[in-house]
């Protein structure tokens, strides 16, 4: 299963996974390697955007509005303000990764705390905590994000908070399901019987078993975070223009699709390539490192 690990009760039997030598992973998985390189490329372009970008990403060249790709000086064309699309895409990688990682960090941390608390507390506390998680899940994350933006105001940081908070629900649920599973397993009970302190049990046995599946979720949720943030731009309440954010560029460019498709198409392609690369990397990592699979094997 891919996009929803831990969301389903784990099958009673886990299929055997052959132990493979780690070193050859890159050889055995050419697509993974390629995707990893692409993702790394985005990280590099984000880090060194000022070096690579031919223009200031917010410089408006009024003489070259809506220039098509391959115009002199503007390899990928310009947008409706005469801003260079290539430069904006390079700088945009910063915002895409920043929003993706930032929002997911908030969501994962919040989900970890809430999910662990719910999974470990038991009794009435667990019941109440789970109902809170349920209610976060019952509110669609985009609508939750819209409400948070309405309260917090706008800007990249606010978008990160809003999307992050909206992601807490799904993470919490995953974590809690994993905690429940681990708690039910014999070794935890045994550890408890051996008189190990409660915190030690959590730290040594539960946390590691929860964090791995969580890490796998992260790659998938990064995509979701970036997509939700671009949806906010579509609704006119996302990242502040003229920030070179891909979601904003796609959203602004959509009004020109009929005659200047590159305005939305170029950042759209950048976003698609990044998201595809991330999900291939995520799959690869999961298949290699998922402790659930390893448990079955070892």
């Amino acid at each position: 299963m891919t996009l929803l690990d831990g969301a389903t009760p784990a099958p009673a039997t886990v299929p055997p996974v052959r132990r493979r030598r780690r070193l050859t992973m890159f050889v055995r998985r050419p697509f993974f390697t390629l995707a990893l390189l692409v993702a790394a490329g985005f990280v590099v372009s984000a880090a060194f955007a000022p070096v690579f970008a031919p223009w200031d990403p917010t410089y408006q060249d009024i003489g070259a509005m809506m220039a098509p790709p391959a115009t002199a000086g503007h390899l990928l064309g310009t947008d409706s303000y005469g801003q260079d699309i290539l430069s904006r895409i390079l700088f945009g990688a910063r915002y895409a990764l920043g929003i993706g990682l930032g929002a997911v960090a908030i969501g994962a941390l919040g989900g970890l705390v809430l999910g662990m608390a719910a999974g470990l507390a038991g009794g009435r506390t667990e019941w109440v905590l789970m109902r809170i998680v349920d209610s976060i899940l019952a509110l669609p994350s985009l609508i939750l994000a819209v409400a948070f933006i309405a309260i917090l105001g706008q800007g990249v940081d606010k978008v990160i908070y809003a999307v992050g908070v909206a992601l807490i629900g799904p993470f919490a649920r995953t974590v809690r399901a994993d905690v429940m599973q681990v708690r039910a397993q014999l070794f935890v009970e045994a550890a408890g019987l051996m008189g190990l302190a409660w915190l030690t049990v959590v730290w040594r046995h539960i946390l590691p078993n929860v964090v791995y599946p969580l890490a796998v979720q992260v790659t998938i949720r990064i995509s979701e975070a970036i997509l939700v943030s671009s949806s906010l731009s579509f609704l006119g309440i996302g990242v502040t223009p003229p920030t070179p954010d891909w979601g904003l560029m796609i959203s602004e460019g959509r009004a020109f699709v009929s005659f200047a498709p590159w305005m939305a198409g170029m950042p759209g392609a950048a976003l698609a390539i990044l998201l595809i690369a991330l999900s291939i990397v995520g799959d690869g990592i999961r298949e290699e490192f998922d402790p659930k699979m390893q448990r079955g094997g070892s």
Partner: protein
Amino acid sequence: MFRFIAGKVFQTLFVLFLVSVASFTLLKLAPGDPIEIALGNEYSEEAHQDMLAELGLDRPVVEQYVTWLADFVRGDWGTSYTARADIFTYAFVEALPVTLTLAVFALGLAILIGVPLGVLSAVKKDTLWDAGSAAFALTGTAFPSFFLGIVLIWVFGVKFAMFPVMGFVAPWEDFWGGLYHMVLPAFTLSTYFMAMIVRLTRANLVEALESPYIAAARARGEPGWRVVWVHGVRNILMPLVTIIGLQLGVLLQGAVLTETVFSLPGAGQMITNAVLNREYGIVQAGIMMTATLFVLVNLAVDLAYPILDPRLRPSR
């Protein structure tokens, strides 16, 4: 059994209560009020205060909430502030069926295309077919749905003029007309699910095809298609049902964008517009509907597990 059902009902109501408090609080924390927006360029402080008082929006927030709750549970969903739309009619009779139709068509399309692609991927594992369907599935999730929708409108609606680009036709009144109008929006909304289903199907089927009982079926000499479609695909039912329950929220938020792009008067657009216009009553009604739906579907999923997988018994 009675205890079990009563517990579930209580749990559901408690979640709905939490959701209603949360959405009311969030919206009241947001600056601006519906009258100020509605007055537009005719704003004056006198008219503003007058209308607020008229609509009871000048009362304490807690009182407003309690009044809303009391009315709501008695079936009085109220009216919107300026347009005076009856919220029950708008939200439940008009908007919800549109979104449900869109969701059902999108899910149907996702299953109809996703499962065969996933099967193909699994059966022809590690070939070009496999890579191709993976690429197709991945690309679908990588574009924001509003962008995909607009591109589809211009390409298949205007350039090739194959499908209508807007509007809702109720399939219970005109099935084929409804279907025809739903092609582009349902496809737009389905891509995310389609991708998930392709990957889900592939992963589970690959695993299943290596299991002893499949080998046994093959040994019995059952035809290949039967082995795959009957014995193999049975394995993906449970995960499939699970995602439908869990990802309902994703479906609804995709619906917000798809509905706007294709001018479908559904609940997703309704809630978003209402949040932006501070139409508290509509937001509450909309959130209550979607939350109830979410809770009920997940309840149904819980109940369906034992049927789909006898190894699992209902948990409390």
